């Protein structure tokens, strides 16, 4: 196990990049702490797979270095890095039995058959594969194959990190749950450094201690799931995490008040004059409430409710405010009045953004 340090890392797939638009990965300086579970979250083409392949050594970065603890591994080939990786589509050695699949990396490293046996049996036990050890790997289901790929990584002692490249893509929703839980349990038992690449926020947030959000080759924010949810550092994070995404409105901010089209919205913090051409406020649908004019007592933004979608666990109210869509999440069991035409925000959770980036306020 090791701490992974990315030093001034950048990568372009072009031989002679001229500007920042040519880079798939722009200047990343980052430390992956030993034993933590990370998720790398972003839309397709944001550079997350590029970053993963640089860590595993499948790709040589154009600029910068990769350190495992104090060791510069930038030009070390994959096989010398002690990395395990699980790919999007299950990779198993078709003609081998499950046992031989698990034993493969150990045998490649010339381990004694007794050692191989002991470790394979232990890992198989841990991953519930004991019953199928004698079967040919290719006849198994997709989730069993993914478990085998994971097992091939785990059998090796001293794995520096386990990397996952969208490992649940081909897995049924019911089984996704089981596999995700299994991963989490493994992590909580063994504390391997794990880096999990995905575009699915639920997978990222539920798996990781720390989530790294990437957008267009840049790391936009890194934080705990709770931080990302409550204080998105960029409007993109607000949009990308959460379903539906964060409501964003153009605003003018003075002290502890924001003005949206002249209507006042109270803020929990106070702001000095904000530098930046575009000022916005962002509120998650979970922190907005829909109520009638009387209940709102004169405050709140006037809206027209377009429709209410009941999705079982909660309802989503799609409302219109001066031509812009605002979403409100209404928890199960809370009734919605027919006369609801005001939206109120929870002041604690109204964030202020300047040119897309969050602005910190002073305690009011």
């Amino acid at each position: 196990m090791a701490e992974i340090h990315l030093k001034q890392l950048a990568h372009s797939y072009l031989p002679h990049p001229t500007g920042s638009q040519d880079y798939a990965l722009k200047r990343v300086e980052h430390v992956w702490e030993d034993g933590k579970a990370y998720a790398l979250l972003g839309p397709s083409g944001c550079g997350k797979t590029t970053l993963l392949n640089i860590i595993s050594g499948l790709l040589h970065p154009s600029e910068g270095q990769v350190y495992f603890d104090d060791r510069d591994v930038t030009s070390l080939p994959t096989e010398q890095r002690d990395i395990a990786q699980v790919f999007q589509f299950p990779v198993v050695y078709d003609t081998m039995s499950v046992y031989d699949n698990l034993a493969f990396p150990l045998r490649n490293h010339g381990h004694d058959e007794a050692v191989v046996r002991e470790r394979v049996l232990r890992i198989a036990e841990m991953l519930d594969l004991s019953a199928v050890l004698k079967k040919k790997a290719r006849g198994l289901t997709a989730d069993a194959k993914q478990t085998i790929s994971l097992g091939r990584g785990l059998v090796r002692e001293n794995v520096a990190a386990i990397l996952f490249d969208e490992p649940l893509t081909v897995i049924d929703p019911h089984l996704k749950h089981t596999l995700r839980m299994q991963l989490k349990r493994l992590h909580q038992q063994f504390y391997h450094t794990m880096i999990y690449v995905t575009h699915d926020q639920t997978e990222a947030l539920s798996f990781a201690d720390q989530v790294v959000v990437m957008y267009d080759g840049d790391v936009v924010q890194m934080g705990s799931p709770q931080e990302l949810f409550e204080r998105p550092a960029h409007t993109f994070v607000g949009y990308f995490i959460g379903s539906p995404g964060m409501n964003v409105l153009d605003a003018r901010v003075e002290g502890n008040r924001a003005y949206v089209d002249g209507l006042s919205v109270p803020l929990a913090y106070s702001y000095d004059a904000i530098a930046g051409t575009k000022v916005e406020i962002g509120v998650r649908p979970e922190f907005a409430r829909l109520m009638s004019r009387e209940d709102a007592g004169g405050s709140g933004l006037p809206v027209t409710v377009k429709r209410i979608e009941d999705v079982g666990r909660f309802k989503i109210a799609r409302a219109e405010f001066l031509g812009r869509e605002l979403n409100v999440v209404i928890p199960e069991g809370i009734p919605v009045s027919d006369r609801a035409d005001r939206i109120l925000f929870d002041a604690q959770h109204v964030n202020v953004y300047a040119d897309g980036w969050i602005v910190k306020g002073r305690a009011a």
Partner: protein
Amino acid sequence: MALQLENISKVAGRETHIYPTDLSLDAGTLNVLLGPTLSGKTSLMRLMAGLDKPATGRVLWNGNDVTGLPVQRRNVAMVYQQFINYPSMSVYENIASPLRLQGLDKASMDRKVREIAELMKLDSMLSRKPLELSGGQQQRCALARALVKGADLVLLDEPLANLDYKLREELRVEIPRFFTESGAIFVYATTEPSEALLLGGNTAAMWEGRVTQFGPTLKVYREPVNATTAQVFSDPPMNFVNVTKAGDKLLFGEGQSALAFGDLLALPDDCYMAGFRPNHLSLVPLDGQVLKFHAEVTVTEITGSETFVHLQHADDAPWVALAHGVHELSIAQMAEVFVDVGNIYFFNAKEELVAVAAATKAA
């Protein structure tokens, strides 16, 4: 217009893909086929389209038997999980292709193509080739081609499965809008319960080649007729515990007891299986008639707004609690969890729903 399947089944070799099924879909409705992989969603769609010949039964269109009619002579459109477009044609030509086959005149074809392209937000890329587009745009193009045809039956087989999470969310909101304007019968296959709920309409829950329940989506979700449907329509899976009814008393695993009420009073004394959804298993005490269980925490997953807590209760299958907010719990700790009796489903030995408390019923 209506599509009716009468006692339809599909057998391939020794395997039965679809057991005899009756299903009736009305015009202008959105119908979701919900079930895990290999539950028969695609097979059922192929039977509806006329791509496959049923082993038994009939397919009726507005009461006319069309069982033997090949797909070319039915007015059907289909969209697949893979983005299927003609790679050598422009987006415009792709969308126009079904209209050309219908022999439409140039002016009205052009009008229709532009109309649908605008709806699908493809109007700025009509001259591009499909492979130059992003995945979401490619699938929009395939959807546009299916919709422009004006088909009576539009079949969508997991159309969003290969797309990014956020794109999926956007298209999911858009799809119900198109169908309300077309008046056709839409059939949408998915493996995800949340997708079915977001789409609304009707849902047919499928499991191992059988339609276990068909009805309005929320009704199927709130009042599953059996444990299988409940499980198909629950993500994370439903939690189960044994319960014995004796008189007006309900006795649960650890000796918790509750008073029967509503529909429950009419149940004969017997052993039952009680099921409740993860979001109804609370980590904090609740009001009302509440049961308290002790379970061991195996894993916690925190998503920022919610926490998934995986639990092991006695010898039952693993439980999951989905709680609002952030809850830090350490592994192997014993936790107290609460469930409102009003949110419990009662299933008999045959796993059929026998009673549902009033609070969970669909409005």
